[in-house]
């Protein structure tokens, strides 16, 4: 595959990769800049030379302070935007969930999932059964006919997860999906997401600014520095599941990562 700038190849049938796709996402030397506000023609570098692989079935969290471009990187991987330089390849079209659940209020919970199935090309006769299977997977068996406003915050995020899974992608991108939830609900959804990830074998690239969340969920934590976003450090998290947010091992690694993150943030105060 030619390493021309800003290529986004989303087909797994590419000749070179046809034998075996060894990644769910491959990000190579990706940079992204936006027109800088207040200047004419000036550009602000948001992401600088990011190289990152997500292996099939792997759970990776992208961690960073605000302004590190983690959401920008996720948008690039999702194909919603093009990189200024570098290439991004994914194994099929990835699914994406947002901080707000982004469920369509004119559809029921089941209807939202069925729309995803319909847009994927699943025939009408199979949609209902598949939607119910997915709702069952996130333990919302009875929520099929519920309207979005009738669901609690945690239930909405689970329906959003089920809708993302309905795309049958091999890569699930999650942009701070639990940031707006209360602590108890978030903790339960962490367990839930871990369970769904292990049951489905989907790869997850999960963006967060919450260190403990990153450690609790991931097999690998990637720390991004801010302005521009570069990969500062990576940790492999070998802790067994189930993990708890209050586990000593989770806390210890969190402390270490938090120190690093604070160092990154402090650097900006010195300029």
């Amino acid at each position, binding site marked *: 595959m030619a390493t021309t700038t800003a290529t986004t190849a989303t087909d797994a049938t590419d000749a070179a990769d046809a034998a075996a796709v060894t990644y769910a996402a491959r990000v190579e030397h990706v940079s992204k800049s936006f027109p800088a506000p207040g200047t004419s023609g000036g550009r602000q570098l948001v992401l600088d030379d990011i190289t990152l692989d997500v292996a099939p079935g792997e*759970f990776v969290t992208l961690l960073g302070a605000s302004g590190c471009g983690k959401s920008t990187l996720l948008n690039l991987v999702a194909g919603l935007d093009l990189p200024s330089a570098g290439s991004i390849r994914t194994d099929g079209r990835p699914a994406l969930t947002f901080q707000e659940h982004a469920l369509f209020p004119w559809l029921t919970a089941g209807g939202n999932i069925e729309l995803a199935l319909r847009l994927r090309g699943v025939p009408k006769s199979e949609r209902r059964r598949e939607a119910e299977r997915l709702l069952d997977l996130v333990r919302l068996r009875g929520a099929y006919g519920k309207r979005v406003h009738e669901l609690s915050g945690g239930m909405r995020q689970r329906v959003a997860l089920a809708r993302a899974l309905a795309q049958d992608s091999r890569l699930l991108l999650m942009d701070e999906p639990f940031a707006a939830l209360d602590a108890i609900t978030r903790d339960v959804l962490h367990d839930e997401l871990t*369970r769904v990830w292990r049951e489905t074998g989907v790869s997850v690239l999960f963006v967060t600014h919450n260190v403990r969340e990153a450690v609790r969920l991931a097999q690998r934590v990637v720390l991004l520095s801010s302005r521009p976003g570069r990969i500062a450090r990576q940790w492999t998290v070998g802790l067994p599941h189930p993990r708890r947010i209050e586990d000593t091992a989770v806390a210890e690694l969190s402390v270490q990562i938090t120190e690093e993150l604070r160092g990154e943030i402090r650097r900006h105060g010195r300029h």
Partner: protein
Amino acid sequence: MAGTDNGIAIDKDGAEDLAGLEAGLDALDSVQVGRTPLRETLIRKVVPPVTAVALVLVVWQLLVWAEVAPAYKLASPSDVWGEVREAWLQGTLLDYIWTSVSRGLLGFLLALAIGTPLGLLVARVKFVRAAVGPILSGLQSLPSVAWVPPAVLWLGLNNSMMYAVILLGAVPSIANGLVAGVDQIPPLFLRAGRTLGATGLREAWHIVMPGALPGYLAGLKQGWAFSWRSLMAAEIIASSPDLGVGLGQLLENGRNNSSMPQVFLAIFLILLVGIAVDLLFFSPLERRVLRRRGLLVAR
């Protein structure tokens, strides 16, 4: 494969524990939605307007008794009621209404068929918006009665002329309503739709149109009001024996005959149709859409 990488699986007890915890949270956090009983709805929604109408009738009758104006200027409620009875017994009452309503509805449906794709184009295509958007907004503020003289000259005194006036009045409202509705769709829905694979016409059908529905409905409601007003203006100004007697002509005939009861009758019928269409069609539709989206807060 991911499941086996980590060695320890979540044990069964843990899973059941989680399921129970989750069910508890769901029950605590869910919103309970109830509907008000019919009796209460009747008392709250029907009694006040009926009282208001009764009050107007009483004041009207008092004014007639006080003889504030001569009888040929101020018809009494009973005179107008006599006019209604007469028209009903002659079998012409429903004809008047139907002549106008059928014209109004057909004109409105035509405006719908033209205004909807036009609104979608203006909302979604930048060039079209820059080109047509300001004209559309301008047309909305032009009283559609201004189109009657040119329509008569272009098309003559016939039904086509009526429809032309209705279209010129209603199409801008419907298109503008849709544009406003599309502009109010949260960008998140469009992004979510795109990640689900909705692009082009599929995006328009599955995401943009349903997302814009509340604004679109408001535009339709206004479009109907404009259709009805335009039609009445056209009927009053352009009367011809070939056109049949609609409510506008009835009003004009009343003026020519100096018959105040007939004038009042025509005005009441015009008002009645306007209110009925809103009350029986648009309001329930709007409430239904808003309630389904959880946007209707019970007061």
